[in-house]
């Protein structure tokens, strides 16, 4: 048994910041507890009953004191609120620039991990140091939660939607992945390891695995297998919209609205195509794929559709298989 610490290992840029905020909260918490314990003990001893006839004078209250002990704690709490909110927004909003995108599917009771280069793993996640890593999370069944204590981060994996979060690993090592949302029989066995490597070793590791086909290439196969290609003819007018240069751009809908073509939009348009019809096209042409296509194939399709688009400025630096 190693040396005891109240902190788990710190392996990301964000972990230290969360620990700093935690230290502030501990300081306030311990300070307040000591203050209250001190006065309770002090009064309990100093004013203990000396005679059964004691009849202390009543003190009905003090408005200045009430205001003081409402306002001062509230101000201290405002610091917690401001600090915690700022850090939360930063930890949960992926940088718009150069991120390494990794796709994770949770199912009872394992994590299936896909890399842009087509490598796939179960319950093992490999990431390089010094690079912003963005995870896209999907679930095939119930709600799970992808939790890496060493990064002080978790996010629920909610079926029917994509959730994302990001981190920048800083310290090579092996750290726990836990499922943090109860998901049935083997919930406590839905665990794995994230391996943080320095960039050079990471490249070596990447080239050692995989089938040789990138996620986009796998997605193209799915695209052909399900016959998407017969209507979504690239670069020309088919019965359905061309998918070239769609991702990341606004799409005009038949009902006059405009939506951004992000992962959630493409997911919905595959599973339930009539939900949003592109202007100039007809509903009920494309079959509903809800329940027909697995989450992993769906993610490959989305990566493929992404690869058909010249990155917008917001997507510049999407991982391109080397």
């Amino acid at each position, binding site marked *: 048994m190693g040396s005891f610490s109240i902190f788990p290992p710190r392996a990301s840029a964000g972990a230290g910041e969360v620990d700093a905020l935690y230290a502030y909260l501990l300081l306030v918490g311990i300070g307040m507890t000591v203050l209250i314990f001190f006065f*309770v003990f002090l009064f309990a001893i100093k004013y203990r009953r000396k005679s059964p006839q004691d009849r202390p004078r009543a003190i009905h209250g003090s408005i200045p004191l009430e205001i003081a002990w409402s306002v001062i704690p509230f101000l201290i709490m405002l610091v917690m609120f401001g600090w915690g909110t700022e850090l939360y927004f930063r930890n949960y909003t992926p940088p718009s620039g150069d991120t390494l995108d990794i796709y994770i599917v949770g199912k009872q009771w394992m994590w299936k991990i896909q890399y842009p280069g087509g490598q796939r793993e179960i319950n093992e996640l490999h990431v390089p140091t010094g690079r912003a890593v963005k995870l896209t999370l999907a679930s095939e069944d119930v709600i799970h939660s992808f939790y890496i204590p060493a990064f002080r981060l*978790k996010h629920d994996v909610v079926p029917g939607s994509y959730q994302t979060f990001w981190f920048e690993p800083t310290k090579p090592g092996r750290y726990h992945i836990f499922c943090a*949302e109860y998901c049935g029989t083997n919930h*406590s*066995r839905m665990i794995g390891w994230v391996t943080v490597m320095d960039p050079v070793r990471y490249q070596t590791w990447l080239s050692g695995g995989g089938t040789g086909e990138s996620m986009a290439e796998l997605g193209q196969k799915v695209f052909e297998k399900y016959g998407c290609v017969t209507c979504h003819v690239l670069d020309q007018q088919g019965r359905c919209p061309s998918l070239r240069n769609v991702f990341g751009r606004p799409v005009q809908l038949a009902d006059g609205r405009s939506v951004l073509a992000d992962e959630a939009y493409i997911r919905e348009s595959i599973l339930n195509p009539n939900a949003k019809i592109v202007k100039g096209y007809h509903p009920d042409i494309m079959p509903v794929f809800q329940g027909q296509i697995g989450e992993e194939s769906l993610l490959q399709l989305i990566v493929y559709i992404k690869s058909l688009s010249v990155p917008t400025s917001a997507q510049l630096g999407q991982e391109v298989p080397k």
Partner: protein
Amino acid sequence: MSTTLPHPDLDVRTNYLNADYGWKSWLFTTDHKRIALLYLFSITAFFFVGGAFAVMMRLNLLSPNGIFAHDTYNKLFTMHGVVMVFFFLVPSIPATLGNFLIPPMIGARDLAFPRINLLSWYIYIVGGVMALAAIVRGGVDTGWTFYAPFSSTYSNTHVILAAMGVFVAGFSSILTGLNFIITIHTMRCPGMYWSRLPLFVWGHYATALIQVLATPVLAITVFLLCLERVLHTGIFDPSLGGDPVLFQHLFWFYSHPAVYIMILPGMAVISELVACFSRKAIFGYGFVAFSSVAIAVLGFLVWGHHLFVAGQSMYASMVFSFISFLVAVPSAIKVFNWTATMYQGSISYDTPMLYAFGFIGLFTIGGLTGLFLATMAIDVHVTDTYFVIAHFHYVMVGGMVMAYLGGIHFWFPKITGRLYPEAWAKFAALVIFVGFNLTFFPQFILGYLGMPRRYATYADEFHTLNVMSTAGASILGIGYLIPMIYLAWAWRFGPISPQNPWHAKGLEWEQSPTPPPTFNFIEPPVVTEAAYNYSGEEAEIG
């Protein structure tokens, strides 16, 4: 001061306990005090059922690889939660002490609707039997939170039976709340102005508002869940077009206010204990009274802090985080005012006051760790870990159960007409305090280290802290058994109590005999002074 003394010849001879005999006199009673005892025995039974599950959970966690099968452990923590939350904590203080004491405290003969009060107990028992039936037939494994789509689609256990048990028991809670609100509004005796209400009554009034307004949402939620399971309606399951996060919004819209159903009555008891054993008027009576109402109102607006990692809009999360900090202010006001009440008081260390000390200390820790969870960046790390488990056990067990035991000891002479053995009681209070902290403090550390909740097995590095926690639980378990024994003994063999053994203020002690007769008072009570007038000040002429 006009204190009406009972007629000496009527004294203790006829009271609510010996006014009538036989099982029918209990099962068909409409006396709020007898109904309170029916509740007392039922919730005590559920407490020990829920406690037995906790003991088995702690045994399982002695080893990193667990002792029981995973499914067994999953059922244990589910049934521990369901039984403790819905069949012990929610009814605990309101249905026993509240039921027994609100009428005499406001100078009423009974609650406004005595037969509805009895009905609420029967409904509770029906709900409880359904939950027990679910347990006996093999249990439930969804967690007490019944999250969809696991509960609606994937679990193969008795979800419908348990959820409908919760559904039914909810109506008992609604009826109790309704009864309290109407009683407090309409049945106060002459001179019992709102500004003179004991804080016990204020706390229960706030609780009753939540019971009436929030519980219907729980009923709707579990009903929709059962519909989804049977008819596949597609409200929550995304594969049927539903939204699983909608379930969490609906569930926590009840279940966060329900946390205040579980703690406000505890605070209500503590106000009485601190005043009596300091022989002082409560410092800042108005602030303590209105902080209960403020907690009840703000408590409805914080449910989203359970969804910071569930994919809720970040801006919604920000608002929920802010209101969660706001709701901490009235709780802090209470703690400060209790402490200030002791200043220059005459403080005795009788058992109820020891529990009040315990409550103030443990609730402070429970409340402050709540701030960690309201801070979004910290919540992302510690939510769904043992940090949360430790936090709410400090509030629910360290707070509510301490207050409940303090209240039971304080009013034991009132309820039974006998005194309990003080030395044993102090010893038990100490054992419970030590056992509690040893059980739950290590769980804060486990949580920050990253051990998720609801884990049948865990990583080796969490072993030591889990062993400590289990050791504490065994001490805590013994601590809870000791009062069972001496209180049962004292009920039969304890020395006869004088009318007001604590020299406490309040109609229930000063003007109602001990134990009270069926209609609480021999002569109609009149109030001529403010609450907690321990220093004997003249009533202001107004």
